[in-house]
C-alpha cells in the first residue's frame, strides 16, 4: 500500500493509505482526529474544511496522497497547548455562533482563512460571501457573521478599518 507522510497539527505522521483514501478519512479514521466532519458527498457543506499549507480546503475533496509533504491544521490544532482558544474559537463562543456544533470545525477553519486573507478588513457582505462554502442549519449564520467580524481585530491586532465596516 502507498504511504503518505505529512505534518498534522505540528506532528509528523507516515501512514499507509489506499489510492482512494480521502484526506478526511486519513484524519478521522487513521489519526483519530474526529473534529473534522463529513456532512455531504458533493463538496458543498464545508464541515470537512482544514488548512493545507495555510489554505482552507475541503478535506473530503482531496486525496490523502495529494497531501504528501504538506502541513495540515485541523480544528484540534488551533488552541494553544495550554488550552487557550484561537481568537476565532473564542469569538464563536462569545457570540453564540454554534448550536449543534457539527458544522463548527469547518466553519471556524474557513473563517480563519477568510480573515487571514483580508488584512484590509471585511464588510458584513464580504463575510457572508466568504462563508458560502460552509453550510450551517442551526444558527441562520447571524451570530457566525458577528463572530467573524469580532475575531478580525483580535487576529490582526488592530481595529477593523472603518472603510470596511
Amino acid at each position, binding site marked *: 500500500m502507498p504511504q503518505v507522510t505529512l505534518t498534522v497539527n505540528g506532528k509528523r505522521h507516515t501512514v499507509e493509505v489506499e489510492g482512494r483514501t480521502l484526506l478526511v478519512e486519513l484524519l478521522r479514521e487513521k489519526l483519530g482526529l474526529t473534529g473534522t466532519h463529513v456532512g455531504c458527498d458533493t463538496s458543498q457543506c464545508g464541515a470537512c474544511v482544514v488548512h493545507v499549507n495555510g489554505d482552507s480546503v475541503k478535506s473530503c475533496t482531496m486525496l490523502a496522497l495529494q497531501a504528501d509533504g504538506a502541513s495540515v491544521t485541523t480544528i484540534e490544532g488551533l488552541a494553544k497547548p495550554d488550552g487557550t482558544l484561537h481568537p476565532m474559537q473564542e469569538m464563536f463562543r462569545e457570540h453564540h455562533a454554534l448550536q449543534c456544533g*457539527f458544522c463548527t470545525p469547518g466553519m471556524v477553519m474557513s473563517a480563519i482563512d477568510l480573515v487571514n486573507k483580508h488584512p484590509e478588513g471585511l464588510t458584513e457582505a464580504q463575510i457572508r460571501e466568504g462563508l458560502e462554502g460552509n453550510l450551517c442549519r442551526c444558527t441562520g449564520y447571524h451570530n457566525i457573521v458577528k463572530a467573524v467580524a469580532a475575531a478580525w481585530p483580535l487576529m490582526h491586532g488592530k481595529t477593523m478599518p472603518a472603510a470596511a465596516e
Partner: protein
Amino acid sequence: MGFEGIGAAVKRKEDARFLAGRGNYVDDINRPGQVYAYIKRSDRPHARLKGIDTRKAAAAPGVLAVYTGADLAADGVGGLPCGWQIHNKDGSPMAEPPHPVLAVGKVRHVGDPVAVVIAETKQQAKDAAELLEIDYEDLPGVAASTDAIKPGAPLVHDDVPGNICYDWHIGDKAAVDAAFARAKHVVKLELTNNRLVPNAMEPRAAIGECDVTGNYTLYTTSQNPHVIRLLMGAFVLHIPEHQLRVIAPDVGGGFGSKIYHYAEEAIVTWAAGKLRRPVKWTAERSESFISDAQGRDHVTTAEMALDEQGNFLALRVSTLANMGAYLSTFATSIPTYLYATLLAGVYKTPAIYAEVKAVFTNTVPVDAYRGAGRPEAAYLLERLVDVIAHDLGFDRIELRRKNFIPPDAFPYQTPVALQYDSGNYQVTLEKALQAADFAGFEERRRQARARGKLRGIGVSTYLEACGIAPSAVAGALGARAGLYEVANVRVNPTGDVTVFTGAHSHGQGHETTFAQVVAERLGISIAQVDVVHGDTGRIPFGMGTYGSRSLAVGGSAIVKALDKIIAKGKRIAAHLLEASVDDIEFKDGKFTVAGTDKSKTFAEIALTAYVPHNYPIEELEPGLEETAFYDPKNFTFPGGCHVCEVEIDIETGTPKVVNFVAVDDIGRVINPMIVEGQVHGGVAQGIGQALLEHAVYDSQGQLLSGSYMDYVMPRADNLPSIHVGTESTLCTHNPLGVKGVGEVGAIGSPPAVINAIVDALRDYGVRHIDMPATAEKIWSIIQAHQPRMAAE
C-alpha cells in the same frame, strides 16, 4: 442566583468541546471489532421485488453477511410502528399498511432499503453491494398527492384503496356552512406548502452492539433515545428494554428528522446480535435525501366567510397531506392534531371546519420538520388574511387587529379543541411594526424603485402550540404514548448536582439552560451543575426533544424534582437546626430558620444527607436524589409577529430579504442569547422554505433535488441580519412560565416573506405566489402582468 440564573445570557457550557473538535457524534465513535453496514436502496420509485440474488455479494472480499427482508421476516423482526392512530370521519381507524425494515414484495420509494451488506470495511461493503442482483418489475409510480387520489392512480399499497390513509375532520361543519350561507363576503385561496428536506448537518448514523450475555447497545443520532428503545425493543426486535441501551450522544441537529425510529437502527442492532460484532452505519448525504423523513407537502383550499366590516365569521379548510410511501413514526399526527387544531391562529373566528385527507405516494415518508403542522396552519392563515385584505380592500394590519383575540379573553377556547392560556397579540404586533419601521416603508419602496428594484413588506401574526403534551388529551386523540417528561436530580455529597433529563439536546443548549434553572433554584453556580442526556442506561426515562417541549415539559420535570430536593433539604435542616420544618426557609442557597440567623448552606445539607451521623434517620432516608415525572396540564402557546422586507430585481425576478424582524412571545426567557439563536435559525429555515428550498419529484417519484447541487440550502449570503425581540406573557400552567422557542422562527417567517413578495408585486395584479418564490417564478409573473397603472 442573579447573574447565572434565569434570564442571564451566560455563554454555553457545551461549546468548549465543540469548539475544540472534541464533540462526540455517533460517527466519531468506533467500537472494538466493528464492521460496516452498507444499505442497498431502491433506485426506482415503485417496483415489484421479484428476487434478490445475494450469492456474489456474499462471496466478495471482507463480506460477513448479506441480509434481505426475507431474512428479517424469518427471524420474526417486526415492521416499523406508527405512533399515532387517526380515525376517519366515520370513526373507522386509518389505513396502516406494514412498514418493513427491509422491503418485502415491493419497493415503494427511491431509497427504500432492499438489502444490507456487512463487511470488514466500509469500502468492501459498498463494493460488494454492487454485486447484488435485484430483479425488479417496474410499476407506474405516483408522487403528488393530487395525482394519488385520482381514480386509477397506481396503488402504493395494494390493499389501501385510493391511496387514502385517512379522511379526517375537525370542527363544526354545520355551523361553518350556516355562517358561509349568511356571509357578506367569502374569500377563497388555494395554496401548497412545499415539501422540504430537513438537512440536519450531521447525517444519520447508528452502531449496534451485542455482548456475550445478549445485552444490546445502540448508538444513534436520535432526538429521543428512550422512544427508540421502546419502539425498537417492543415492536421490531423484541428485545426486553432492560437488555437494550440506547445512547444518543452529541447529535448534530435534528429539526424533527431524528425523532423517528428508522430502519437502519433496527438493522445494525439486529445484525450485531447475529454476527456478535459491532455494526456501524453512517449515511452519506445522498442517502439522507432519500431516507430521512421529509417535511410539509400540503395542498390546501381555504375559504373565509366575513361580514361587511371584515369580521371573520367562519373558516373552511380542506387539505391533502402527502404521507410518502410509509407512515413514519409520528407522521399521522402532523396534518391533524398539530395542524388543524391551530387554524384559529390568533383570531377569534367563531366557527372552523377542516378536513384532511392523508395520502400515500411513491415518495420518501413525510413527518415532523421544525414546526410540524403549525407552519402549514400559520402559512395558510396569514396568507389568507393578506388575500382577504387584497380582495376586499381592507388594510392588512387593521384587519388583523380587528380579528385578534383580545388580551382580556384568556383563557380562550377555540372552535378547534385548543384552549389558549395566555397571549397578547397586539403587543407583539406593535413592537414588530415599530422595530421594522413599518410606517416609513413607502419611502423605502420609492427609493428602491429608483434603483430598479421592487420592494415589499409583509407581516405575519402567528400562533403555535408546543410543550406537547397532556398525555390524557394526546391519548384520547390517538397517541400511542404518554408525553410527559422525566428528570432525576442527584445532589452529590459535596453539593454539586447532576441532572439526568429525558429531554435531548442536539443544538438547543440544554446543558446550559437547564443548569441555569437548577442554579437559580438551588443558589449554586452553573459550573456546579452537570446535565446528562441521551442515554437510556443513565437516565430513568424520557420522551425526548421535539415540538419545542424541552423546557416547558422537561424543564418543569426538573423544577418538580428540585422542589422535592428542597423539601427534603428543609427536613434535614430542621433536624440540624432543631426547628420545625415549617419554619425553614430556603433562599439563595441557604436553609434558614425564619426570623433568625440560624442557617445551613445547601452544601452542608447535601453532605449531611450522605454522611447521616446526625440525621433524622427514623423518618428520612439518607441521600439527596429525586426523580420527577411531569405531565403538562395543557399545551403552551407562543405567538408573535414577524415582519419581512424584500427587494426584487425586476429584470431577473431575483428576490432578496433585506430586513427581517421577529418579535416573539415565548413566555419566560431563561437565556436570551440562546433564545435569539433559536429564532435566528428558525427564521433562516423559514426564509429557506419561502424562497429557496423544495424537494422536487418527477411525476413517478424520482427525486430531482437529491443533493446540495440541486436542493437549495440557505447560505450565509442568502440571509439578512435578523432583528429579534421577545415579549413575555407567562405561561400560566407550568412552573417556569415558559412556552418554547425552538420552532417559532420557522412558523412565523414563511408567510411574512411571501406576504412581502406579493406586496412587492402589487402593481402586477398578483394575489398569491406559491413557495418557494424563486426568481423564475417571480419573473414569470412580472412577464405575464403588465404593471397595473395607478388610477388617474
